[in-house]
């Protein structure tokens, strides 16, 4: 398994659990790298069950949403599934306002999300 700078990757059964190392996901070189690391889980490592745990994430902007949408598209093209969990209220509001809560399967916590795969 490669070493990642922006994410922490763990296996729980056949699910790949991803946590974010950055507390703020904003437009800059780091978010480009973050996107790159997330995409490589699908493109290079062929993982097909991803759980993104947002417990560390205090802030994200629309560029991060863009990365998540692209990740979702890659995953669907590859026939896999993504779930999101542990999203704090303000960020959840970002998802509901943009209706992305309809595109993504968002669960309260890791246990809920794991059970839903």
């Amino acid at each position, binding site marked *: 398994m490669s070493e990642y700078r922006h994410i922490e990757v763990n296996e729980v059964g056949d699910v790949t659990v991803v946590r974010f190392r950055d507390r703020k996901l904003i437009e800059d070189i780091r978010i480009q790298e973050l996107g790159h690391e997330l995409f490589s889980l699908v493109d290079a490592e062929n993982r097909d069950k991803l759980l993104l745990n947002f417990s560390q994430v205090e802030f994200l902007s629309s*560029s991060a949403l863009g990365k998540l949408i692209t990740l979702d598209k890659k995953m669907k093209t590859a026939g896999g599934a993504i779930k999101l969990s542990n999203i704090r209220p303000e960020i959840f*509001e970002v998802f509901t*306002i943009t209706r992305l809560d309809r595109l993504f399967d968002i669960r309260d916590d890791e246990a809920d999300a794991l059970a839903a795969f």
Partner: protein
Amino acid sequence: MTSAGRAAKTRERCLMANEHWTWQTDQKIVSEAGAARGIQEELLRKMRAARWNRHECFAVRLAMEEAIVNAITHGNRYDTAKQVRIRCWLGPELVRIEVRDEGPGFDPADVPDPTDPERLQCPCGRGMMLMRHFMTRVEYDESGSTVVLEKRRAAGRAK
């Protein structure tokens, strides 16, 4: 300037005069991702010091980020010869941010609704909707290259 433009300016001046600002700044940054980070952090520090709540700080951080990213990317198109002017005003009840780029402007009315089911899978086009939702006021000038964002503090907070 059209008479509508003049009226808007006058209204603006009155609004500004009625407010009592405790802090303000006026800076120019180059058109590079992250160049405004310092100003953004400073405003947020001032807001936290003045005990704006977590949701309000989140809202201002988000809207300001979206406006600045738009100014750099869509406005100045990363042209490092062009600058973005950022002005912030902080008062007891109101925070106001003005972001001005040197780009061609645009018509905000042309921006499609990103929540249309057909556009849900497109990775862009959500910044303006987020600004509008999280702020009290979002207004573009006639050309579209200047945006004014305002957040009014929640009325019911503990004093």
